[in-house]
């Protein structure tokens, strides 16, 4: 059994992460789960949420958007639409986005087509804020 996990995070715009890590915690659609070395092969869908990994005793956080993770023989491949590590998140912008999304939500009802879009935007903004705060 390998000691480390080979973590790779890829988005349509390029590879974000490629590191040897000790563990991975990912936001699955059925709840958060952790992956340790020696995990069985798995393919899981991911939700909008906070993704984190432990490297050299330090935990790093990434805000991710829809995607999935493929675990195979200690290789963890994370394919997501967007991934923002804690240090590149613009907290002010995220807060503004949150305010905007909240305002839009107030004007809509659940039947509106835009409701889900605004809801997702709010969710993303919240996650970003969460990630940014944790990194500090």
């Amino acid at each position: 059994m390998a000691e480390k996990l080979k973590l790779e995070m890829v988005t349509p715009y390029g590879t974000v992460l490629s590191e040897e890590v000790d563990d991975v915690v990912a936001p699955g659609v059925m709840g958060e789960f952790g992956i340790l070395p020696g995990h069985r092969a798995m393919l899981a869908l991911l939700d909008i949420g906070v993704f984190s990994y432990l490297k050299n005793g330090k935990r790093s956080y990434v805000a991710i958007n829809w995607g999935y993770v493929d675990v195979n023989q200690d290789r963890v491949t994370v394919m997501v639409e967007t991934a923002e590590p804690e240090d590149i998140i613009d907290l002010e912008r995220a807060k503004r986005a949150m305010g905007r999304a909240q305002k839009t939500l107030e004007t809509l009802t659940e039947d509106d087509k835009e409701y889900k879009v605004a809801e997702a935007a709010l969710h993303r903004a919240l996650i970003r804020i969460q990630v940014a705060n944790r990194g500090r």
Partner: protein
Amino acid sequence: MTSLKTIKKRISSVKNTQQITKAMKMVSAAKLRKAQQAVLDTRPYANKMSAVIANLVNKVEVAHPLLKKRPRERALILLVTGDRGLCGGFNVNISKAVERFCRSNPEEFKQIDIAIIGRKGNEYLKRRNVNIVNVYENLTEDVNYQTAALLGEELSAAYTEERYDVIYMYYNAFRSVIAQDITRVQLLPVTMPEGEDEGSADPGYIFEPNPKEVLCQLLAKNVEVQIFRALLESRASEQGARMTSMDSATKNATEMIAKLTLQYNRARQAAITTELVEIISGAEAIK
């Protein structure tokens, strides 16, 4: 003999053109670098996705609407071209390939519709008696994933609602700066390269939440990713094609200027000679 003045005029007009082509070459060289990087960045994502899906399809027996094969009667072709010209045969070649496909119709479809991305493809095909159902303009310069996602959803819907039985996509794949490959892929129904990666995966794969859900989402995503990739490849190819064609245009202009200058000098010399002869013979006459 053309007069000196007209030759001079031509030289300066060719010089102007050359300046334009030179500038365009520079611009597309800069754009190319960016577009090329974007293509290289997307490839791992697209390739990994196909690998995962190939793996899944072999393992899980799911009747998914995007996998279901129907009698192939109505086809849709998504043609990816550019919005601007001056890039050699980039737009024309691929439009011609599509036209040829429609004319020969190798699988004897009852109906072939074409959806076009980019103005140039439309300009070529609209006069050629083919069935164009949709034209998307101004997508090619600033490619983003959202656009591709919207297109993908539209196409998936068209397929599941049984408006089309096959959906193809034609685009220029970026091979190198000077070479583009006209590529045809079948977007839907999803086909998988056979025998890829087989047996290497753990038979006890865990799926979360369940295989069917995973496959459904991945298949829908895959269409979007493929379109996204095609858009990027096409953009890089377009810039590459423009760069090479502008480069040769600049070279041609240089040649033309050299030729015209030679002609100009000859004309000038001839004029001087005639003048001299006149003066000398005039002087002779006075003696």
